[in-house]
């Protein structure tokens, strides 16, 4: 099968639902999926935040300090750290009045090289066509 592409699409805001977190933790699990796969196979996920889901990528989340629960922010940074692409829909940011300087743009503090990509919905549509499976959260 070789490399199989998956698109993880988060369309809801964080915390009121476990879904955005589960999208991130499942995508990150692609790193260790080899043990269940044949030689040469792999899964290659991309994380996409779209619609109200772009609110997941707002920075300075304090869930750990206030509720003792890992922030969605730290999961997004973990994705960047393992070179897992994180995309945020530009049009939805604009609709909600979110500026890039409010968003998680990188995880340099953790040593990650990959940066968040702010993309247009057309890019997301194109990626939906390219991947093998869609996972809406």
């Amino acid at each position: 099968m070789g490399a199989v592409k998956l698109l993880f699409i988060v369309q809801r805001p964080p915390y009121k639902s476990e879904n955005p977190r589960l999208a991130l933790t499942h995508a990150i699990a692609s790193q260790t999926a080899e043990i269940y796969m044949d030689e040469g196979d792999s899964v290659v996920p991309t994380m996409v935040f779209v619609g109200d889901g772009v609110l997941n990528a707002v920075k300075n989340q304090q869930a750990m300090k206030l509720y003792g629960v890992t922030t969605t922010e730290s999961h997004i940074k973990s994705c960047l750290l393992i070179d897992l692409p994180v995309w945020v829909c530009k049009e939805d940011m604009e609709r909600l009045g979110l500026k890039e300087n409010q968003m998680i743009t990188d995880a340099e503090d953790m040593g990650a090289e990959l940066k968040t990509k702010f993309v247009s919905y057309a890019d997301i549509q194109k990626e939906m066509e390219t991947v093998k499976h869609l996972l809406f959260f």
Partner: protein
Amino acid sequence: MGELTLGVFPSLVGSMSLDFAFKLAEAGIAKGHKVNMWLSGNAVMMAKKGQKPFKDYSHLEKRMKELMGKGMEVTVCEACAEARGYHKEDTPEGMKRASMDWYLAKTVKTDRLLHIGGE
């Protein structure tokens, strides 16, 4: 015949999405397809045996066992289960526990994936 993988995340009682998933699995198996099921999030509520079958609540343990008897693989997210206090000894017979990578790996060979995020 093909292979269908269902990823199911909503809770046992509430949305009835688990009822949907098991009915769909049943129909798939009846048509000769191979069906796999991944249970994560609040859907790990399936990983607690000894649930009382009240008529007011969805009760799917029996149907799940029948379908596993017909070859359906059912695997539950181990961390999601432990966080809710469902331990190894609580797991219904035939159900497997694994980490999330099991589900990711299944997406490689399966012909179709229906990911029921919900909730």
